[in-house]
């Protein structure tokens, strides 16, 4: 099969190229002078490569700051997700306490509530909590998630109990068992959860959009959208901004494709 030419290539090769084409164009355009981009008729391959788009971008807008803000938001979101979801997941998988079933069923039911329905009251909640125009507005919604708790619970349920019981017999407390025995075993699930959180928090636009007006507090996604409003004719600069905003996740994807795909198929198992 692999030796002989497969007819699937006739479908997959053009389709792959069509899917890559916009990204390739984004990258090329970011290195193409506006004179070249605005030439009529347009050409796909630029006549010369320039880095002037990036130079102008970093001069015109605090892109470095926006990237840092996004990194802070995603960093906090990932750490908090890993800690809170694994604690919660372990409780709902292994511990018995009053109200456990009710709490768990309620949690899972909240997965059904769409974010968009919450945007108006959440905006006022943030405003009462003084989170408007702070990075908190961007990371508080990603501190933890019902899906994350559910994912970790399913993982802990799949672990054999023997090790934990052995740990108890050796005199470990519940916390000891959790931190010394269970958590080290949970690495694959934690990696999935980290990628899931990274994708969601880095790419989120909604929360910063409604709650942040101060340009020094923009995440890169909000910065991108605002930048488009101000520079909608300067395609080179805009594409440079797009490349900067997109590059971290694309590079991450190329390095850890298996983990990303695994994460996506896991979020398929939810519910």
């Amino acid at each position: 099969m692999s030796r002989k030419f497969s007819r699937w290539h006739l479908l997959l090769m053009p389709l792959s190229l069509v899917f890559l084409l916009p990204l390739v164009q984004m990258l090329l355009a970011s290195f193409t002078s506006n004179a070249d981009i605005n030439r009529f008729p347009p050409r796909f391959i630029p006549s010369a490569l320039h880095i002037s788009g990036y130079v102008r971008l970093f001069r015109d807008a605090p892109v470095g700051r926006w990237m840092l803000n996004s990194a802070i938001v995603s960093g906090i979101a990932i750490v908090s997700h890993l800690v809170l979801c694994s604690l919660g997941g372990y409780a709902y998988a292994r511990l018995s306490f009053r109200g456990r079933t009710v709490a768990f069923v309620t949690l899972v039911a909240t997965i059904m509530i769409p974010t968009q329905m919450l945007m108006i009251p959440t905006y006022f909640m943030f405003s009462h909590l003084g989170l408007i125009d702070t990075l908190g507005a961007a990371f508080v919604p990603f501190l933890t998630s019902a899906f994350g708790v559910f994912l970790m619970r399913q993982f802990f349920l799949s672990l054999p109990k023997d090790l934990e019981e052995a740990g108890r017999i050796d005199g470990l407390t519940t916390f000891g068992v959790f931190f010394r025995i269970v958590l080290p075993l949970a690495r694959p699930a934690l990696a999935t959860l980290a990628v899931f959180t990274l994708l969601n928090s880095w790419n989120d636009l909604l929360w910063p959009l409604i709650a942040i007006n101060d340009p020094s507090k923009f995440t890169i996604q909000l910065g991108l959208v605002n930048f488009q409003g101000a520079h909608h004719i300067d395609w080179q600069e805009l594409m440079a901004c797009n490349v900067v905003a997109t590059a971290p996740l694309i590079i991450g994807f190329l390095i850890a494709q298996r983990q990303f795909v695994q994460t996506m198929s896991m979020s398929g198992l939810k519910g």
Partner: protein
Amino acid sequence: MKHGILISDHEKSGAGVVRRRDRPGMPDGSADKSAPAAKPKWTARRRRVVANLTGWSFAAPATLIILALTLFPAAWAFLISREHWNGLTPARQIGWDNYRLLLKDADFKSAVNHTVLFTVLYVPVVLCLGMFLAIALNRKIRFISFYRTALFVPLVVSAAATGILANFVFDQQFGLANNLLRVLHLPQQGFLADRHEVMWVIALIYLWTDLAFSVIVYLAALQDIPTDCLEAARIDGANRWQQFRHVILPSLAPVTVFVGVWETISVLQIFELVLTTTHGGPLGASQTIVYFIYNQAFNLSRYGYGSAVAYTLFGGTLIITLGLFAYARRSKIEAF
């Protein structure tokens, strides 16, 4: 299980209740069970208190944050939806007036029309394409990892970046799309600036970012089909089509329900792509329901009305989702 929660934990209820609340094999439960009944009562009770404290100290942080960010605002949104409120002056209670207004609002109707039409056309396409491409990608041929990478990579591109890139690609004068049409000697198109084309173009862009999701889920499901089944079908003389029709397709049914529901919910909520490409234009031709909510609330300060629309969308989504599940159950598809 249910009884355990209803029965109170007073000292009167004693060890019997503890036993009922236990699930077998739980570390804390087994500790309780191993405590002999003859031991003083306070020990059993203290163990229970400790178990509850431990359990909640694990569960409470995540649980409280999630409830505070979902159930609480959801309830609040309902209260706001029955108010006339601009966020500054005190709210006025107006009962169901926002919902009544909704039924007569032509702009809302057109937003619903766009969104529903989009959903009805998009979801079947993405299901078929996703399944087809998953089958195509589920084989060991040359370049397969290149194909997978190319088709999956748009998944990590944010809605904001996708929208801005799309503005460039579909730019009327300088964009790649019209350029390709020119090379092929086809008529130039308005794309995002054309009232009749804009939703189709947005659907195409959304397909670019979203197709990988269904492909990945289908691919995972395909790899779960035991090879014995396909082998057996082949030995019985089934051709490619029969193998697909009678072995592959039935085993993909549960995943299809899942992907269908998932896509329906997410497409009904399409928003960020509209915001970064057309802002609902031209002339409201790409106004979707969530963009409508956002516009009412955050541009026009009509928070009550916006919340009423949001609740209506939630209700509609819920009904559609439950309908799809009911349909799946009647068709004997074990979806979840």
